[in-house]
């Protein structure tokens, strides 16, 4: 089972080699075996999954089946799913049964896919290791002493361990690409606006974007076609038509211009990661691509800008968790202020509180211009860096993360954790798409190559990644843990 890709399962379902019930049952068994060790799911919705599988099988028998009909998937627990607990990895929402479904969940339901459950994540998507989850850390299937990355750590670990062929994650500053890199899978953060945010519990609204996490670029292409598109319920979603991404995977790479941002190969980059990335670039040269150095001069300000803008938006987005209408409420509040203070003090974890405090401070009178306004100016400069680079080259390549997965508990202070995102954060600030693909190993832990494209160039990114995966087999490697639960 852990060998299967979404594409191969879709083919098996289509050819009648397997039913959705069989696949779903197999995956549920794998989850049952793996979870005590891995902790990649917050909720496993076995009953609903089997019911959807049966419905998908019936639908297929009647001749009504799309590409994803009957394909089991896992969803990050940030997507509101009607009738299912949607916790966002927080005690605050431990009791929250979503009364409606996110647009992407509706789209997947309409496509007939089967949700196996909701995956673990850093609390409110704030983290790079999945250690801030109220539901405990997730283990990396490649090395159980390592983190899976974050915040979509559960989604990445589940796919790597073969607990689902593919999953959905969200990415605000690297939360799809970094865990994809740490877990040796393929993960795409689409252009801001490509996928509706409606029903995705907001962390930083101007940066959040949902995307596919799977074993191959081809799988990601199928999943992206299913979830992308304009949504009248999200004013920031783009009114552009959605290509059939999978049908655009055949283009040869001869003449492709690859830029290597100097700033992405500097201090702090682990030598093993750098050599894996440079080796991958050589593979592209053999496929006919040309390579040159480029500069993204404002890169060094990206983290600072991000850690002003994202917490500012978060401090406001998380105000609704006040114990009044839903979520955690403290016992016996004395008055309204007591209700607010204790409900929030009890419901939020350390990292969430830290970011709310940072955001509240930077938006305060007297600080707003120095922090928020300035960070927005930096953001425009960073975006312009990328636009300038894409005048010269087609795609940019670099590492997805400065190191492979680090040990659980290794990052003790918040700032060193924040520095994990130095190669991913600027991409969210610029709103462009980025994909991480497996490109080697260091000490038994996967290394991810990050490929970046201009706005709405997902088809190109997926094709570039796909062509690489045609001539390499990093993405086909399986962790020992996955084999143990076969």
């Amino acid at each position: 089972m852990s060998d299967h890709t979404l594409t191969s399962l879709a083919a098996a379902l289509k050819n009648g080699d397997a039913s959705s019930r069989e696949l779903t049952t197999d995956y549920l068994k794998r989850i049952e075996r793996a979870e005590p060790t891995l902790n990649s799911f917050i909720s496993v919705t076995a009953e609903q999954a089997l019911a959807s599988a049966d419905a998908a099988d019936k639908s297929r028998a009647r001749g009504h089946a799309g590409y994803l009909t009957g394909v089991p998937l896992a969803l990050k627990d940030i997507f509101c799913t009607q009738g299912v607990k949607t916790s966002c990895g927080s005690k605050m929402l431990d009791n929250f049964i979503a009364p409606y479904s996110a647009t992407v969940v509706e789209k997947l339901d309409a496509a007939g896919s089967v949700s196996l459950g909701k995956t673990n994540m850093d609390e409110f998507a704030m983290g790079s290791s999945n250690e801030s989850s109220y539901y405990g850390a997730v283990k990396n299937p490649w090395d159980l002493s390592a983190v899976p990355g974050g915040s979509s750590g559960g989604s990445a670990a589940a796919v790597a361990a073969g607990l689902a062929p593919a999953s959905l994650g969200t990415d605000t500053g690297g939360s799809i690409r970094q865990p994809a890199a740490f877990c040796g899978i393929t993960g795409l953060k689409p252009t801001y606006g490509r996928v509706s945010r409606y029903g995705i519990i907001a962390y930083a609204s101007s940066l959040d974007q949902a995307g596919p996490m799977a074993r191959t670029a081809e799988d990601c292409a199928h999943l992206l076609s299913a979830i992308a598109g304009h949504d009248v319920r999200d004013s920031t979603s783009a009114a552009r038509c959605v290509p059939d991404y999978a049908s655009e995977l055949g283009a040869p790479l001869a003449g492709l211009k690859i830029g290597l941002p100097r700033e992405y190969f500097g201090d702090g980059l682990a030598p093993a990661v750098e050599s894996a990335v440079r080796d991958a670039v050589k593979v592209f040269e053999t496929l006919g691509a040309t390579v040159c150095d480029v500069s993204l001069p404002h890169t060094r300000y990206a983290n600072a800008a991000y850690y002003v803008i994202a917490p500012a938006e978060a401090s406001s987005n998380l105000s609704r968790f006040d114990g009044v209408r839903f979520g955690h409420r403290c016992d016996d509040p004395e008055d309204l202020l007591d209700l607010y203070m204790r409900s929030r003090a009890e419901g939020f974890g350390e990292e969430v509180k830290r970011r709310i405090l940072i955001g509240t401070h930077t938006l305060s009178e007297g600080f707003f211009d120095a922090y928020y306004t300035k960070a927005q100016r930096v953001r425009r400069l960073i975006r312009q860096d990328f636009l300038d680079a894409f005048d010269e080259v087609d795609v940019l390549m670099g590492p997805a993360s400065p190191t492979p997965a680090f040990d659980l508990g290794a990052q003790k202070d918040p700032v060193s954790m924040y520095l994990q995102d130095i190669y991913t954060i600027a991409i969210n600030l610029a709103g462009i798409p980025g994909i991480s693909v497996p490109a080697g190993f260091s000490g038994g832990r996967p290394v991810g190559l990050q490929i970046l494209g201009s706005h709405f160039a997902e088809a190109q990114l997926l094709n570039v990644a796909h062509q690489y995966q045609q001539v390499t087999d990093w993405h086909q490697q399986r962790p020992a843990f996955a084999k143990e639960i076969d």
Partner: protein
Amino acid sequence: MQWETVIGLEVHVQLATRSKIFSGASTAFGADANTQACAVDLGLPGTLPVLNEQAVAMAVQFGLGINADIAETSVFDRKNYFYADLPKGYQTSQMYHPIVGPGEVEVSLDNDVTKRIRIHHAHLEEDAGKSLHEQFTDETGRDMTGIDLNRAGTPLLEIVSEPDMRSAKEASAYLRAIHAIVTYLGISDGNMAEGSMRCDVNVSVRPKGQAEFGTRAEIKNVNSFRFVEQSIAYEVERQIELIEDGGAVVQETRLFDPDNDETRSMRTKEEANDYRYFPCPDLLPIVLDQAYIDHLRDNLPELPAAKRERFESKLGLSTYDASVIAASRDMADYFEEAMRVCGDAKQAANWVQGELSAALKREHLAVSQSPVSARQLGELIGRVLDDTISGKAAKQVFQALWDGQGENADEIIDTKGLKQVTDTGAIEAMIDEVIAQSPKQVTQYVEAEPEKRGKMIGYFVGQVMKTSRGTASPQQVNQLLKEKLDALV
């Protein structure tokens, strides 16, 4: 010392859209609690706002109505604060780039004077829900607060004036002018009792002649014209007394208590919220092109100031009549229809301002609820103008129409026999009868100084009119009586 009052108003106008500003839930007033609050209004995790274009159009119409600049690009900001009836923990508003730029409103004051009040800007925002503090207790009998989110997300236009008003009267006149504009435009029902219009009043005082403003107090949520005047009157007196006693006004928010006719401190500047405004990342800026604005401008109705001016200059109404009638679109429409039917603006204005307004006031009705239609009144006035009935009889006909005793004036004139008698012979006969029955008065008249007789004739006129049950033409009665009585001298 002579003091001058300085007043600025922030008026919140509920826009008459069918659905809320950022969701599809209904805005209808009076539904059961929380039945008109959808996932977006409840601020459920993951929900997003989508702007109601109708609210934008209404804001632009208002801007055009006060000759303001309309912003090509305006932006929604989040105003962050915690309150139990504020579901998201922030109010979506427009702080830095409001949709309507500076404009002005012409306000009519009592003594036929008009004054221009400048408007700083107007911006769109969402309303909060309501906290109900009085009706709930928990199982142990402790007081609880209920939250009704039906109102949450109702579109508001907040209209912020410059501190241009100098008296309570000017403030309420300004509020009336705003009321007239928004109801003329049809962008709000203007129903103050239901909270469709309410305002925050900023009041300060300064020694007359001083250029700098005094420290102001803001009186929150005043919801009637009368309360605006009362709260300002109280507040001005409080501030002057405070200063004259050697104290100082502190900048603070106060609440008006109409039951005790006083304002009370709510919170001082030190306790004020830092709202941490920043642009709402869930909403795109509103970008308006000139064609859109022009289209709305071309379709604007005639507004109160233009109407008042036309009533005065083209129809010859007094400034007072013109402003009172033009203050309400319903009243102006009624007047214009009555005038069209009878063909006489002054008479129509007299009737609308006189008999009609008095009757409406007596029975607490709006002009739209008048039992006498504008057409009926116009026809009635027509019968006075063509001498079919006397003015006095006309009042009886009006009352009969009001009471539903007939379809139109003609029918009532017929059934009540109120047609004016203009037959000289018939009137002479009635005069002769009255003279014969009033020997004492006749003797007095004959013996009186000639210059005093003019007044004394009134008695005889009254008697003749009574005899004719009001149907005799008063002019003829007057003339014939004079001839007959003078003949006796």
